[in-house]
Structure formats: structure tokens, C-alpha cells
């Protein structure tokens, strides 16, 4: 199979990831529960993973990296734990449902949200940030890169805007952590939400938040932490504040190994390779008759995603044809990004998303471009 659905999850992981999970499964106790070697092994690896993530994301402290199952859970924690009735939030049309639904729920509970609009080409209107400000605006919540088009938000600009107006800045780095540069300290980002199984190349079931010092998040869940067991309330110190219950130690061991691979290979090296493959594909398909590609490829920094449609064909049909006839895995439909699909005019058709990882090759990329060329030609002849 030619796997080009890495924006959903990276299928090929560095070999050390599976090995680390296997070793953890046969040796770990429960992190923070007991002082025996099994529990300590788990605790040491989990702490090491916090250190590596803080270093990668420019976080201030390893103990301000709190683990969750995924980005969605991290975003829910940040949004529901920092904002409430009466608060107004500025977000964008590029958001995934992992941001949109928590914001819609906040709105239903007495908060308010406005979205910086995207135009028919998917471009954000940065001027709208200013015009959407209200006295009660408390935060900007936005993605680092669209999971639909791969276009990246100018987070330096958003950071300046948020700082200028005294707003919290919560960043969804689901599509970018480990590939695009994020320095939350330099950019005054309050919380970076990440997932372990996409560009970080770790196992599913791992994710979290990297927080600035002094950020006070109300805990989403409370429960066992392995410390202060006689207290009736959740410990207030991070990361325990946001980590009720047993962590996914086995998965985090895999994520730790993935972060080693990323550091050894180099984030920029990985970004450059994925980007080169995506642009190689883009160059081969963008001007094929009947093919519409979405997104802005003039920007040097973007996620390695190319999303397209062929004439008015159902994206589900095209994706199925790619899978069944060419053994190429892509993602059709709405990609949990309803607002951007509406802006692009693809709400009914959906779109076919191709997305790359470090482990893809030029030959796979060329085969995918050839498959699109064949399907576009056949669609024209039909």
C-alpha cells in the first residue's frame, strides 16, 4: 500500500517505537504508584518524554507537559478549563471539530465565539482578528496548520495580536508538532495542544498540553494521582492537576522513542523532506485538466498536505478508486473541518486529501500523481 493519509495518523513509525512499546508492556509498573523498579521505570520514561516535548515545543518546564489521550482531549481541557460563561473567543474558519465543538459548547453555556473568515481560496482574513475584538474577548484559539489544506497560520502574527490585547493564545499543533517550528516561550503561547500519533510518529492514545508557567487550568477530571491521597481535592501542581488516573505509560514509551528519532534525524530535515514530496505531487497535478487543488502553495511553511478534487466527482468515490485500483490510501469527505469546506465550496463534494510523512518516497509520490492523472483523464472521457 502507498500510504498517503499521514495527516490522519502516521502509519509507518520509526522501528524503535514498536520496540519501546513492547519492552514497556513487559516491564513497566504504574508511574507514580509505588517505589519498585517497575513503577520507577515507567515514571522515568514518562518524565523523560515530558522533557523532550518541552524542549521540542519551547515549553518552560518538563512538569508543565501534561499528558492526555490525544489533541481533542487536550483542547477540551484547555478550552473548558480556562474559559467560561461570559467569555468571548476568537478562532478561525480553519479549525478542526476538536476546536470547534468545544467552542460551540462554550457558546451554548453562555460564552461567545467568532471566527476569522476564510475566503473561497481558503485564505484567512487577518484583518478580521482586530474587528472581532470585544471587551469580553479572553482568548484566541487556533490551529497551527489546516488539516484540510495544509496552509499554516502565521503564529508570530497571532501571538503579537494576542499579546497586544492581553488575550490567552491556545494553539492546536495537531498537524505540526515535530515538523513546523513551535517555540511557545518565544511566542508567548499559553498552551500548545499536541497529539503523539501524527507528525510526532508515536503511538495512538498519546497527546497532551504544554503549558506556560502560571497558567491556571481548572481540571477536566479529578481522581487518583499517586500523591496526596488523603486530600479531597485534586493536587494543584502540574502535571498531576490534569492527569487523574493511570497514564498510557506503554504508549508514552513509544512516544519517547519517536522523539529520540525526531531529534536524531532533525525536525528541519524531516520537514524539508515531507514538504519536498508534497510539492513534487502538487507540481505534477495542479494544472491537470479537471483537477482542483485547494490551499496556498506560495508559502514556504506549510503542513505536507495536498487536497484536491477531480471535476465534480464524489471525493468518496475518487478515494475508493485510489484505494481499490491503485492501492493508495487517502482521506475523502469533510475531514472534521466543516467551516473551511463551506468556505471552499466543497461542503457537498468533500475533497481527497493526500498527506506525507518522513517515511514516504519520491516513487510513491510519483505513483500517486500518475493515478490522479489517469483518473482525471478518465473522468474527462466519461
Amino acid at each position, binding site marked *: 500500500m502507498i500510504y498517503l493519509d499521514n495527516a490522519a495518523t502516521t502509519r509507518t513509525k520509526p522501528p524503535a517505537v514498536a520496540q519501546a512499546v513492547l519492552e514497556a508492556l513487559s516491564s513497566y509498573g504504574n508511574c507514580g504508584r509505588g517505589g519498585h523498579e517497575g513503577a520507577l521505570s515507567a515514571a522515568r520514561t514518562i518524565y523523560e518524554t515530558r522533557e523532550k516535548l518541552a524542549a521540542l515545543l519551547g515549553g518552560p518546564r518538563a512538569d508543565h507537559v501534561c499528558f492526555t489521550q490525544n489533541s481533542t482531549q487536550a483542547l477540551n481541557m484547555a478550552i473548558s478549563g480556562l474559559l467560561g460563561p461570559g467569555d468571548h473567543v476568537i478562532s478561525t474558519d480553519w479549525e478542526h471539530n476538536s476546536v470547534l465543538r468545544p467552542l460551540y459548547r462554550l457558546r451554548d453555556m453562555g460564552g461567545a465565539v467568532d471566527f476569522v473568515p476564510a475566503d473561497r481560496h481558503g485564505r484567512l482574513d487577518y484583518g478580521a482578528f482586530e474587528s472581532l475584538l470585544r471587551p469580553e474577548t479572553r482568548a484566541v484559539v487556533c490551529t497551527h496548520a489546516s488539516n484540510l489544506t495544509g496552509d499554516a497560520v502565521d503564529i508570530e502574527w497571532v501571538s503579537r495580536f494576542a499579546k497586544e490585547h492581553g488575550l490567552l493564545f491556545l494553539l492546536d499543533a495537531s498537524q505540526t508538532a515535530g515538523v513546523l517550528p513551535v517555540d511557545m516561550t518565544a511566542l508567548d503561547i499559553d498552551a500548545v495542544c499536541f497529539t503523539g500519533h501524527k507528525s510526532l510518529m508515536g503511538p495512538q492514545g498519546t497527546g497532551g498540553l504544554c503549558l506556560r508557567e502560571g497558567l491556571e487550568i481548572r481540571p477536566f477530571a479529578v481522581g487518583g494521582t499517586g500523591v496526596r491521597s488523603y486530600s479531597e481535592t485534586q493536587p494543584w501542581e502540574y502535571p498531576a492537576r490534569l492527569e487523574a488516573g493511570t497514564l498510557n505509560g506503554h504508549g508514552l514509551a513509544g512516544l519517547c522513542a519517536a522523539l529520540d528519532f525526531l531529534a536524531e534525524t532533525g525536525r528541519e530535515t524531516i520537514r524539508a523532506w515531507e514538504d519536498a514530496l508534497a510539492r513534487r505531487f502538487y507540481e505534477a497535478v495542479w494544472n491537470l485538466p479537471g483537477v482542483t487543488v485547494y490551499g496556498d502553495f506560495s508559502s514556504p511553511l506549510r503542513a505536507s498536505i495536498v487536497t484536491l478534487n477531480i471535476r465534480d*466527482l*464524489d*471525493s*468518496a*468515490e475518487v*478515494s*475508493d*478508486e485510489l484505494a*481499490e*485500483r491503485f492501492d493508495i490510501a487517502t482521506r*475523502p*469527505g*469533510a*475531514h*472534521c473541518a466543516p467551516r473551511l469546506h463551506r468556505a471552499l465550496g466543497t*461542503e*457537498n*463534494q*468533500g475533497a481527497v486529501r493526500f498527506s506525507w510523512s518522513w517515511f514516504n518516497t519520491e516513487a510513491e509520490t510519483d505513483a500517486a500523481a500518475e493515478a490522479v492523472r489517469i*483518473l482525471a483523464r*478518465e*473522468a474527462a472521457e*466519461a
Partner: protein
Amino acid sequence: MRVRAEKCVVAFHTTAGAMAMEAACKAAELPGRLIPVPRSITAGCGLCWAAPPESREALEELVMKKHLDVVGIYAMIL
């Protein structure tokens, strides 16, 4: 693109529903496969079961018997 033909298509509320259908069809040795849901059923995402049109009756019986969580069963050209 492949030649379109009539199919019996079963749509579900959830991915778990699609998995239950696949398991039930496999156990009952009924033909078909999971495909991305066509836009004519719903604009969005998800999976549906696509089977030869002559299997409709057997699929309906299976859905009833196993209390499978389906949105609907459609005759479609795919």
C-alpha cells in the same frame, strides 16, 4: 473510473456500527465491503456497506436479526 453498477448500500450512525455490519456479514457469508460513504447519502465522513443489489433482502434480515444500528438501506448506482 470504474463502470458504475447498482449496489445495495447500508449506512450507519457510527464507525462501530459499520464494524458490526462487516463482522455480521462475514459470519453470515454475505458479500460486500466497506467503502467511504457517498455524498448522496451524507456530506461528511464515514463508512457504508456496499453489496450486490440481490443481497438486499438478506442484509435487511441480518440487520433486523442482529439489531444493527443502521441509518438506512439504499439502492444506488456506484
